[in-house]
């Protein structure tokens, strides 16, 4: 089973970003290092959601924000290891839309935000076109 480590500081940062975007979906980039099945997130960024028509239940991460995150990661000797996004008033489980748009070898961290309060956080990775949950550490 693969795992994703996210420090308490980054979890708090993620919760603040997730709550701040409510009732709309928020998204961003996970930067860190991967070693075999273990991924360590060392930094996360906030990205713009370009989907203004269905911002409450869809996200379309601005590619310019992704490019900036990629540049930042490479300059630090790191790489983009995944994407985070929120599910306002829905569980932290990937939807069919998430699955259809997912890329392999990235972690997909989902934050459930209920009534504006960030709650459950779960991480998923695509495996043969299906999402498999990762162990979230610590």
């Amino acid at each position: 089973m693969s795992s994703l480590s996210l420090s308490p500081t980054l979890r708090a940062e993620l919760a603040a970003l997730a709550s701040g975007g409510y009732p709309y979906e928020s998204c961003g980039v996970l930067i860190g290092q991967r070693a075999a099945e273990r991924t360590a997130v060392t930094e996360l960024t906030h990205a713009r959601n370009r989907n203004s028509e269905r911002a409450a239940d869809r996200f379309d991460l601005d590619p310019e924000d992704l490019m900036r995150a990629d540049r930042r990661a490479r300059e630090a000797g790191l790489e983009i290891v995944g994407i985070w996004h929120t599910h306002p008033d829905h569980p932290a489980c990937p939807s069919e839309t998430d699955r259809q748009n997912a890329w392999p070898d990235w972690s997909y961290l989902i934050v459930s935000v209920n009534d504006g309060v960030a709650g459950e956080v779960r991480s998923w990775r695509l495996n043969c076109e299906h999402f498999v949950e990762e162990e979230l550490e610590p």
Partner: protein
Amino acid sequence: MSRVALRIPTPLRRFADGAAELELEANSIRHLFEVLQQHHPELRDQILTPEGEPRHFVNIYLESDNINTLQGMATPLPEAAVVSVIPAVAGGG
């Protein structure tokens, strides 16, 4: 001919023997992918359609500019240019 860096995102590195970046010689974006075809044809096919246009789920940047805002596939490449392939990322619950 310019020597340029092609930056590959993590999800596509499996098509480039795990490389994060390739150094290639080319004079335009279109030429760059023609050269890439010779070295990593599977990677080229992930990025471009058989007709040689960018697939809808990737974006191609020259430095900080999307090539769509430049001259598209005909965009010339200066020496030491950095070309980035950026995946389209979307979803929602």
